[in-house]
């Protein structure tokens, strides 16, 4: 996540965009919850049930609610935790996505060019992810180029193709060239974005805190489908859309969602300092233990009513709520599913 560019980039008027129609970053209707299909035991592709759609809408709403000096905290109790954090985070992630192709390449060129020679970088070129070692800049035919060594030869990249160049985290393995987005079609149809751009920049769109093994089952093991206007279907996984750092297919993939174990003793420094747009607490353990972090982010607290520690989680939520500024009106999301209990409140950002 080092070198992440979008960690705090939530400024801009687009944050108050309504829930339907065009949302920030170029996402167009229909929205992901309308496009995604789940697979029945008979292999049929069905539209998402209302509870799943509500969770995507909730994630989007919390991500887009930007009231100066305040943050929104929403608690939801549900009959099961399965897929709840995954769909909520999908709503967040899709809402805050900003296409790197729309960023100013000159600014990024200058940022990267200012780094010391030898810095490892990675970048997208067409359908592939490349890695290299920075060697400075050079003007070729009057055009500024970034120079890097790809392990075999010295290469040059013109400044206007530098949107996606990022520093490669030293902990990531150096792979010279490999395909960028294996489920590109699924991502494109589900999110309505350029899947290669989506996969070419590291960002912290959302932080999920829960039991990694359970989240992995929801995100990586369960196939979903997206229908095209022509009626054909393609399959993929929610992790293709969320790009979680804990469930990377390849060692140096770009991530968009961070996953942290609720039981962790030590929060990594890169996350302590970060201000993710939304933190999704999947279960009471992480909420009870880690709620002193990310006090500048909005939160969604998901509590499975069958979970052993749910009473402690609900008590903590109620206590925070009693000290809050005011309750939040979530009516814009429509009536919550009968199986849910939903409450929200605003807090002053310290």
């Amino acid at each position, binding site marked *: 996540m080092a070198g992440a560019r979008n960690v705090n980039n939530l400024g801009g008027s687009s944050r108050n965009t309504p829930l339907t129609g065009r949302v920030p970053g170029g996402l167009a209707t229909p929205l992901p919850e309308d496009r995604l299909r*789940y*697979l*029945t*035991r008979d292999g049929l592709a069905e539209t998402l*049930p209302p*509870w*799943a759609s509500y969770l995507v809408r909730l994630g989007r709403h919390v991500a887009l609610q930007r009231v100066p000096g305040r943050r929104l905290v929403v*608690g939801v*109790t*549900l*009959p*099961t935790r*399965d*897929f709840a954090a995954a769909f909520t985070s999908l709503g967040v992630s899709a809402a805050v996505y900003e296409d790197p192709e729309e960023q100013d390449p000159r600014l990024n060129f200058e940022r990267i060019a200012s780094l010391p020679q030898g810095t490892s970088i990675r970048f997208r070129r067409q359908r592939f992810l490349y890695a290299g070692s920075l060697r400075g800049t050079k003007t070729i035919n009057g055009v500024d180029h970034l120079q890097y060594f790809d392990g075999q030869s010295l290469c040059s990249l013109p400044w206007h193709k530098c949107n996606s160049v990022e520093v490669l985290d030293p902990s990531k393995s150096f792979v010279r060239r490999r395909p960028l987005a294996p489920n590109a079609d699924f991502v494109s149809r589900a999110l309505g974005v350029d899947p290669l751009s989506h996969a070419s920049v590291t960002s912290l769109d959302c932080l999920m805190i829960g*039991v990694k*093994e*359970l989240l992995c*089952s*929801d995100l990586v*093991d*369960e196939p*979903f489908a997206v229908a095209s206007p022509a009626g054909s279907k393609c399959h993929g996984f929610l992790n293709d859309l969320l790009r979680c750092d804990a469930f990377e297919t390849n060692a140096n993939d770009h991530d968009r969602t961070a996953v942290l174990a609720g*039981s962790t*003793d030590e929060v990594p420094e890169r996350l302590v300092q970060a201000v993710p747009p939304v933190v999704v607490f999947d279960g009471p*353990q992480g909420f009870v*233990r880690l709620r002193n972090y990310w006090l500048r982010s909005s939160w969604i607290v998901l*509590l*499975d*009513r*069958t*979970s*052993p*520690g*749910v*009473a*402690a989680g*609900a008590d903590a*939520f*109620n206590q925070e*709520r*009693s000290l809050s500024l005011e309750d939040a009106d979530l009516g814009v999301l429509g009536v919550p*599913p*009968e*199986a*849910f*209990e*939903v*409450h929200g409140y605003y807090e002053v950002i310290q």
Partner: protein
Amino acid sequence: MRFAGTAHRYEIAQRATATRETVSSPLIRVLANQIRKLSRQFGDDEVDAEWATFLRRLRRTMRELVATPLSPATPALRLEETGDYLSELLRHLTPAYDPSTVAQASLCVTAIRDLSQSWENPFGDLVSEILSTASPTSSALLIKSPHLEEISRWLADLHPNAPTITEFEVPKLHGLDCLVVAGPSLWFPAHLLSAPRAETICFVHYDSVTDRPQPTHLLGGSHRPPGTSIRTAAIERTSTDDDLDAGFIASTVDWDALARLAASRPRSGGDEEAVPANLFLLAGGFAVYLEAGDGPRIDVVSELERGSKPRLRGEPTRTVEPGNYIVLRSEGGSGDYIPGIADALLGKSAKEHRELQRLWKSALRKAVAERSNARVERELKALGIRSPNLRYRMWSGSLRSERPEDFRILMDYIGLGDQKDRIWNAMGHLADAHLRAGQEVRKRLEEKLLSSDPDAIIRSGRLDVRLDGTDAGTLSVVRVERRAPDQTTLDEDQLRVMFKVEADLWQG
């Protein structure tokens, strides 16, 4: 297709209805009435230990009867033995107490003796009748009785396709047509109604016990309680003063009695550090103390359900909570099993490394004893250690800090600067061996878990595993059922040691 199963759970949650059916039994009514009268004689007065034992056994007996849809004369209920036990207790109590109280207690014993001869089973008959109207392949009986095996056998004869389940199995259910619950709803988790796993839920219990609804909402100010609530029959018997409140005979834990039992256990007598600890009740009538401070971890099983791959993950002991399945050594030694296996992996060098570990622990404890915890912590911070976490450092199981420079500062501080590199390297060898030992044990335990029936483990709350070729002895994957409300402090050698607790000692 897990998602389809989840979607089905939501459909069930939306459609579920809950009802209550009560059953009459004159003999149960007499016992309930006598217990109520006896408890009224004591009122709110504190009772002495002998009466407390008598009342605890009485309540437990009544609870078992109300939770068990079998004939009271069934040998598993051991009512005759209970009658003898209570008579004997009463014989000791007779000379010292108010005769009317003793006479009332005698009536309770007589009622139990009468029940011990009764082969009628109106409770079981009603349970069976309800199940016979439900879908035979999508029904279950939920019980909270200790007589799981006997009830399962009884039900299997009458309804071979309807399993008997425990409350721990309920969250994993994907959705039944009918769930019959033996006992008042107050005794079961609220999620039975707030996150229902069956379209029809029917609570069945004796009419001499009064049930009370539990709140199903968790977030304050909820305008609409989630899930379903119990609808009662149009014509239902009105409860009277003779009835027993379900809360009065609900299972309670005497944590003080458990703590006293733990304190009376034999000690190693070594130079042990006193550490904060939490007391847990485990499935099968066992208890254990686990570290309450930062640092120590314990293996916890996740994904323990049919069709999934159970995994072990290290969790801080302080975050262990009811419902977790933890790994403890139940035979062949006590306490944490990892150091023993790690030492076996290291061979002869282990002894020297352990001596160095003891050396620096002892030096640190001495420094703290001389200068106070706060002062040492402050001075270490001033020397450049960002987070000294002294309690963890003093814990005999901790090895070394993450940052080598922190460790070197600490060694200089406690007067072992001349050996700091040697100790750092030794602790590194131990850390590597602990890691390898943990990985090896986890891998083999996971293999055993994979080849075991997860439903059986969830039902019994325990799986014993012997890992051949290791020094771990017998390890038990065991469910945590309750956690004491207050922390305590005790010596390290008392930690992670399972001990048996007799129900009469602590169970109200």
